[in-house]
């Protein structure tokens, strides 16, 4: 890997580490996702079902945690919703025939394993390590 490549990797890792430290979550995506930055509005749209594609036009597969602190932090910071509101909104979507609920996982390791192997998938965890084979997305305004 070139020096520039190592530098970008280091910056990404620092960004993820900082996010985890600052009462935030790390947005992770499958390595085939081409984008590196994602707008907050797009995060909101993808995780509420309003959008099915990333900004570059590729298909997005949102995945969530079933509960826990990281789930609550993600919903509060990026969707401005409580778990109850998030659940109600998806139930409305499902029971009116307007969409299918995102896959959800009991643990962050299960979510990371799915994101690692599923093209287009995007989720969130409280922290990642260098051995996790996923991409960290930088969220911009």
């Amino acid at each position, binding site marked *: 890997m070139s020096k520039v490549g190592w530098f970008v990797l280091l910056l990404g890792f620092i960004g993820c580490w900082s996010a985890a430290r600052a009462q935030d979550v790390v947005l992770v995506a499958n390595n085939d996702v081409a984008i590196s930055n994602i707008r907050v509005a797009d995060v909101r749209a993808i995780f509420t079902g309003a959008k099915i594609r990333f900004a570059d*036009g590729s*298909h997005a597969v949102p995945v969530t945690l079933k509960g826990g602190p990281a789930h609550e932090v993600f919903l509060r910071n990026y969707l401005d919703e409580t778990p109850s509101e998030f659940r*109600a909104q998806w139930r409305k979507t499902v*029971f009116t025939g307007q969409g299918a609920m995102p896959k959800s996982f009991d643990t962050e390791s299960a979510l990371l394993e799915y994101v690692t192997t599923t093209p287009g998938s995007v989720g969130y965890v409280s922290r990642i390590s260098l051995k996790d084979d996923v991409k960290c997305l930088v969220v911009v305004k």
Partner: protein
Amino acid sequence: MTIGLRLFVLVCICTGSLYAQDLSEIQIHGFVTQGFVFSSHNNYLTMRSSAGSLQWTDGAVSVTDSVTDNLRVGLQLHMYQLGQLGGPDIQVDWASGDYKVNDHLGFRAGKIKTVMGLFNDSQDVDAVFLWTLLPQSSYPIDNQGFYLAHLGGEVYGEVPLGKRAGNLEYHGYAGQSSVPVNGGYWKQVADAGLTLTNAPGGTTYGGDLRWKTPLQGLIVGSSADVQAIDGTAVEGSLHIVPFLLSVHYAQYTKGRFYFAGEYDQSTTSAIVTMGPAVFPLPLDLRSWFAMGSYRISKKVQVGSYYSHYVNKAMDTTQPANYSKDWVVSGRYDFNSYFYGKIEAHFLRGTGLGFYSSTNPDGVKPNTNVLAAKIGFSF
């Protein structure tokens, strides 16, 4: 087998466990609710509610399969009992194919929930609401099957208006819809002495535009629906000329607070023919509601609304031509799946929800109602 037992068996057969199953891309979800209604002075919603009634059971199971990234198919089976309405038969709530070309354009075909106003398409999904009963002026539960869905096609999508202007979500549809044979309109017609031989219905078309404003949480929208109804009866016929229902609404969510309001209007004339006699029934229906709620904690939410209905084509001083309802509600979520609700209604007027068959001695103008529900959704 009671309807409650049927629902339980239906849910168990379809799920196999209490959790949503995910077999590849197939998703199965469902809900079951049991309600209780106690009312003063009158029996409400075809129940013997003045003595307390548990005749309010509801349940549904949906199956969805994402065939490709863009194509999704699914259906939802629904069953409900509300006093003398509904019944043991399982109905198809919706069954459709949905092809989403991109984020701006999609198509649906089949039996589709009709997007109109704030809650029309979700009015039978109890789990998503704080309210035990939605504002009856706009979403009368005894007739929810009429506007709920149509057989036809829909085009939909969302268009960005720029970073400072928000997004515009649109829906346009056309098809056929009919009056459910186990619903309130059918019963009212039957109580009036007209024995319908088929489900009255006709062509419907309309659309909905909702502006997701740049102010996070604020949505403003309008819907329009044109509907024609024709039905034949043993004694004659029922004819309602195509009429326009217009709906204007707004909702705002900020932190723990939620506010919403809606105004609906439709003007038409129902013509009932019984032998040589013709009875015109003018309708100029105006309804609106305003609501607010506050989430006290993760598990507890409280709220209140006022719901107003009047038929301006008739004498509006008569209780039979208006309904004014003050409501106080509370909801408790035991966990992600189970919840309970309780609600008090202070009803003035008898324009909505009262039937002569359960009030044979006449209807008194004022009614207080206590409604409660427990529900399970996965």
